[in-house]
């Protein structure tokens, strides 16, 4: 495919230049020119008021691999020290929804861990679990993980494979994409099935969270994605749900890395923040002293305290509390943003919260676009009053 400029129609208005996320359009001699940075995202096509930008489809553009035999949705259930990571249950939630929509089955793949844990995956919503419980999988090494999962995919041909965008998933899943020649979309925040084609629409933030992109993998299978933890809702746990656990043997795997030690360095609040049902988060507008009243509000609601990067940069609160692109992704029932402007990098970390309450003195603050309830006011006034009213309501 090529994107070309019809120089007769082009007026050099430069609207396309601004629209291009890849800086691939330049104006030279009063006309637009497309350079090598072009990723064929087609954004410019819709922007041009003259219709001067044209897409030319060439022979051989659509390289079709045979994708007809691929069925079923798979999730990779990662474990650490034998325990299934919470993200696996979220993947099952998302995978179940996709599988139901496609009218197909949901399978989970578990490497290491125990039969009991494998059974849990079924109760959370999987129809089948491929379980390789060889001790070599207890510790994470990229090569055997990638080889085993790639082998299973080759054999059973799922159409979709999801994994957590965790240090483990982000590290070994790309090897599978390379090996099988298929697409992999990193760090997805939304997954939908395209009604017309049945393809997976994979939405992810790009350019430091400034924009969102929808990625497709139409001609290769499986369609693979890693999904940010705490973005998808967990599956529904049903103790009576039954399914099949398929044991998988670990044969002929190479492993040239060796984990010789594992050192834990978890701070308490980190765990609390991601597990909390209520998060009271503060930004630059709160000020150093203000964080104490946020703590009080959080305690009253049985929640944890989060922060914007600005507040962390000011040194008012440790980095482990930071929510956003470069901090944690959270998904509580209630997120109360106090004195936070709502920069996209912050929003990507909390936008899937059920209820977002924004308190900001600037009615134009972008956080209000995202808020379920917005209160325009000074945090120093609003928060103490809020605390008082909740106490009254509780009494």
């Amino acid at each position, binding site marked *: 495919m090529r994107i070309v400029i019809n120089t007769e129609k082009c007026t050099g208005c430069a609207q396309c230049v601004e629209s291009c996320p890849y800086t691939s359009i330049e104006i030279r001699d009063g006309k637009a020119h497309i350079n090598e940075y072009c990723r064929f995202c087609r954004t410019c096509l819709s922007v041009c008021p003259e219709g001067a930008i044209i897409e030319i489809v060439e022979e051989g553009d659509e390289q079709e691999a045979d994708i007809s035999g691929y069925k079923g949705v798979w999730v990779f259930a990662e474990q650490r020290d034998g325990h299934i990571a919470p993200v696996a249950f979220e993947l099952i939630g998302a995978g179940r929804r996709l599988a139901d929509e496609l009218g197909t089955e949901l399978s989970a793949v578990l490497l290491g861990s125990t039969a009991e844990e494998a059974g849990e995956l079924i109760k959370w919503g999987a129809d089948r679990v491929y379980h390789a419980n060889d001790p070599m999988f207890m510790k994470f090494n990229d090569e055997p993980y990638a080889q085993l999962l790639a082998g299973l995919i080759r054999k059973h041909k799922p159409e979709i494979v999801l994994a957590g965008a965790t240090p483990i998933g982000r590290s070994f899943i790309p090897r599978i994409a390379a090996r099988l020649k298929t697409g992999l979309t990193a760090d997805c925040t939304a997954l939908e099935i395209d009604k017309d084609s049945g393809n997976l629409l994979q939405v992810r933030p790009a*350019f430091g969270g400034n924009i969102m*992109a929808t990625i497709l993998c139409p001609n290769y299978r499986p369609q693979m994605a890693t999904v940010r933890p705490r973005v998808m809702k967990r599956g529904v746990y049903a103790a009576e749900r039954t399914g099949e656990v398929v044991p998988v043997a670990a044969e002929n795997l190479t492993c040239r890395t060796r984990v010789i030690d594992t050192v*834990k360095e978890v701070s308490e609040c980190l765990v609390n923040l991601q597990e909390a049902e209520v998060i009271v988060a503060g930004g630059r507008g709160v000020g150093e002293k203000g964080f104490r009243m946020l703590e009080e509000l959080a305690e009253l609601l049985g929640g944890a305290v989060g922060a914007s990067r600005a507040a962390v940069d000011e040194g008012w609160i440790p980095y482990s509390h930071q929510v956003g692109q470069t901090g944690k992704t959270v998904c509580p029932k209630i997120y109360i943003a106090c004195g936070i402007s709502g920069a996209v990098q912050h929003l990507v970390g909390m936008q899937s919260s059920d209820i977002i309450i924004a308190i900001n003195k600037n009615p134009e603050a972008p956080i209000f676009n995202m808020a379920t309830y917005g209160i325009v006011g000074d945090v120093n006034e609003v928060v103490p009053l809020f605390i008082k009213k909740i106490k009254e309501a509780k009494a």
Partner: protein
Amino acid sequence: MNIIVCIKQVPDTSEVRINPETNTLVREGVPSIINPYDLHALEAALQIREKAGGKVIAVTMGPPQAEDALREAVSMGADEVRLISDRAFAGADTWATSYALYKAIDKIGYDIILCGKQAIDGDTAQVGPEVAEFLRIPHISYVRKVEDVGSGAIRVQRLMDDGYDVVESSLPVLLTVVKEINTPRLPSLKGKMAAKKTVVTKMDLKAIGAEEENVGLKGSPTQVRNIFAPQAKADRKVLQGSVEEQIDLLVRELRGLKCV
């Protein structure tokens, strides 16, 4: 010992802003920089060279302008550079990028390959592991410290969610590094002189021996369907009245939802 560093030229995304009226990116005057993580990879390479000997070769796949990034690498101390560039590489996703890098690196020869954890324009963190898979060598992601490097093996610390792992690997190996690993040095005067004089070796499709259907847009399994601004929430309720009345309403709503 050949120590290869993969560097990518990226727009400085910390300066990218969105125009709320047109929902498009404002890219005017946004400078191109070396992906910040790759500077840490380069620094790690230079430190490995200081300990174990060998030469540091910086490679990048990109348009002709990416030569600037390679010169900057020389100014910091890289011994050699390669610009992997061809019109046919345009539009590459991570698969096609990794394939081209693999072909080139295989031609150059390697013992240790260093990549950044991720590139800040796409944040995918896929190219490193994919290159390792194509080369059929092991890789270790999120390296925050190189504890030891010998002629046939390396020991590093790998950052995990709950702490870190100490991981050993045979050579050759590919590492992707996080910022905690080091502080990149500044270009030296001598380095800047060397950068000026450097002849940048170009490698095109033929030179790397790649098949055309595997590079660029044609070789890319993924497609960008569209790009849009992060959206506003649909179920917004605007609270009315004085601040006190608004809070009363809010507390009532929260009680209704059994949150208070």
